[in-house]
């Protein structure tokens, strides 16, 4: 029944996230013919500097369907929106009253705090995985509607990269939620952490080590190799943070 409770507490965040991400992925696929029609109108870009390089790269990628999907979905929209929902699903654990939950009632039940927290984390992670997988699968499913095709394997690998690497943001929000009794501080702090990571990659152009680069599956897109080392490190960091949350909660007084 703790699964049921966790589901009730997070279902709206999950369902809204799912609707937005599916619409975003579906919208990107369905607008591909319009983008292709506009492509000849785009003049040859010859802007110097980093911005120019990026615009040119985006246009070049969009000339081909696989590049267009990666550029629009897995590099931008899905990753950005998914990160926000990862943070949202990570907040509001055992301590929070903001989501209508009650720590004292939960703590009066004959279950350990570790189990309560573990089930809450597992529920969030299952929901996050669905938020990565379903919108990604929408792409190959809808592609025939625009006379294009997209590999299910590519969609699965990108969903996997998004989920495993991005779980770090869920874990940051989750561990912060065991320190603060309200919903807002963990939420804002975790979003700030995500923004700092994004800023770091933008400013230092660190595409080799960046968490967002890992989430986009850029290495797989460009070389066909799954970035296992990065994913394993990210997963280990997430596991450590969830374990830390469990240790923190087990020593707290309510």
């Amino acid at each position, binding site marked *: 029944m703790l699964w*049921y*409770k966790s589901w009730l507490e997070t279902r709206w965040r999950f369902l809204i996230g799912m609707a937005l991400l599916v619409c975003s992925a579906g919208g990107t696929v369905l607008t591909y013919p319009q983008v292709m029609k506009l492509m000849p109108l785009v003049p040859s870009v010859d802007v110097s500097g980093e911005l120019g390089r990026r615009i040119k790269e985006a246009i070049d990628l969009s000339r081909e369907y696989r590049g267009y999907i990666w550029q629009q979905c897995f590099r931008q929209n899905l990753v950005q929106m998914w990160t926000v929902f990862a943070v949202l699903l990570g907040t509001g654990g055992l301590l929070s009253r903001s989501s*209508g939950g009650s720590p004292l*009632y939960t703590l*009066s039940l004959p279950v350990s705090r570790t189990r309560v927290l573990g089930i809450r984390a597992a529920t969030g992670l299952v929901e996050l995985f669905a938020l990565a997988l379903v919108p990604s699968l929408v792409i190959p499913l809808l592609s025939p509607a625009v006379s294009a095709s997209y590999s299910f394997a590519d969609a699965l690998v990108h969903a996997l990269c998004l989920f495993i690497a991005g779980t770090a943001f869920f874990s940051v929000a989750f561990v912060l939620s065991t320190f603060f009794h309200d919903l807002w501080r963990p939420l804002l702090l975790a979003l700030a952490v995500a923004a700092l990571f994004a800023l770091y990659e933008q400013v230092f152009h660190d595409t080799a080590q960046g968490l967002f680069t890992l989430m986009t599956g850029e290495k797989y897109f460009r070389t066909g190799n799954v970035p296992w080392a990065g994913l394993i490190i990210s997963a280990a960091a997430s596991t450590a943070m969830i374990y830390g949350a469990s240790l923190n909660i087990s020593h707290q*007084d*309510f």
Partner: protein
Amino acid sequence: MPDPLTIETTDLRKQYGPVEALRGLTLRVPRGSIFGFLGRNGSGKTTTIKILLGMARATAGDARVFGLPTDGDASGVEIRRRTGFVSEDKDLYDYMTAAEIIRFTAAFYPRWRADLERRYAHTFELPLDARIKTLSRGMRTKLALLLALSRGADLLVLDEPTSGLDPAAAEEVLQALVTHVAEGDTTVFFSSHQIAEVEQIADRVAIIDRGRTVVDAALDDMREHYRRIQLVFERDAPEPSFRAPGVERVRRAGRVLTILSSAGAEPILDEARALGPVSVDVVPVTLKDIFLASVAMED
């Protein structure tokens, strides 16, 4: 042989930063008793309850429920499996309906009493399909009580169970509690500010003040042994030092000397008369008198 004490604490201490919430609390709650736990705001009642249920850990001392230590993970789970709890704020899940939280809670208790669940849902006229956040304070309390009573618990821990209720609703809740206890062998440990309620249903009472037990006795013994002895003098009352046992408090106010005794009046009367008062009156005291005298004594 089963432990005759359901709750036992010895020299229990709890420190929150610089604040000492409990300063050596010792309690003995016999099995099958209705134990009233009285104290002023901030005296340590809720902290004690949280320690008993494993929601907070004691800084020092020992707390046991059913003979099990309250600070162990496994023993804490076992204690909570056998305990029904109603918190002061009647904490429940606002996003669930009454029926949902009943179904949710029942799943954790193998001895869940579906018959009691139906009975109390009917008696309390609970709107089962209503979301908890829409329930009135009274309905919320009744739902919390249904959830505690239907667990088939050996111990009910109730933190201010009637707070915020009108007298009729409070009476309904108390009657349900008494009827429930009369039908089984449940121990009830309840904290309250409402001394009249404690007097109405408790058979044993502890009064705590500033984290310490100042009175722990059976209510009948209290009624039998506590006496107020009032001496009136022609001039200002003297400042005596009584040798007799049971002198809990002595108060001088002008010509009047008031003595609160926990060992009857007889042992004190000889000493009192030797002071030469113009009149001596012995009157029984209420629990409220004892409470006020006990907590004032600590000031």
